[in-house]
């Protein structure tokens, strides 16, 4: 299983762009990179997923370099409600099943 490393916490201000980088040096060929957001006392919620290059949706962008050993989640113009824990996940897909390991995540604090 590919292990991920993220910063423990980050601070930002409303309206700023936030970039959270995740390292996954042992990513396998078939692995996808997925980011989740978790608010207190709730289950994590899917944000974005990618395999290589860049992916963008209405919430965020995901940048993945050619070697895929890292990825960066970009949140444009954050607001107070973006304060949450963000998890970088590198999934393992197996025949007949799938197993997911979450790391400690990055606690993002958005200030007014």
């Amino acid at each position, binding site marked *: 299983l590919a292990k991920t490393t993220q910063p423990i916490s980050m601070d930002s201000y409303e309206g700023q762009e936030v970039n959270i980088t995740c390292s996954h040096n042992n990513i396998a060929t078939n*692995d*996808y990179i*997925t980011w*989740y957001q978790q608010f207190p*006392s*709730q*289950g*994590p*919620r*899917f944000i974005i*997923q990618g395999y290589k290059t860049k992916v963008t949706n209405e919430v965020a962008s995901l940048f993945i370099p050619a070697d895929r050993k890292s990825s960066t989640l970009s949140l444009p113009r954050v607001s107070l409600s973006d304060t949450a824990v963000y*998890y970088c*996940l590198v*999934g*393992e*897909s197996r*025949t*007949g*099943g*799938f*197993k*997911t*390991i*979450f*790391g*400690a*995540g990055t606690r993002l604090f958005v200030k007014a």
Partner: protein
Amino acid sequence: SQTIHQWPATLVQPVGSPLSLECTVEGTSNPNLYWYRQAAGRGLQLLFYSVGIGQISSEVPQNLSASRPQDRQFILSSKKLLLSDSGFYLCAWSVQETGNTIYFGEGSWLTVV
């Protein structure tokens, strides 16, 4: 659309008492099912996952067990709770063999006293 529900949402149990948390998924068939635990202020720890009825894999040795009596039902149990079993328990599901997007339930807060 698919939905996932788990219950109860909150419970306080004495040490040594049994535990049963139940989770059901609607709107899909043959999902992968998972139980995670999250201690206060910590990351998620995978406890069990299942790829089919009666097929359970345990990720960590512990005081808990899981069962999957039906395709979309996943149960987390304990015969005798320990203080260290306290935490936030999350049930989740994913589609088999199509990537790694996992969908989580609302969570269950367990306090063992």
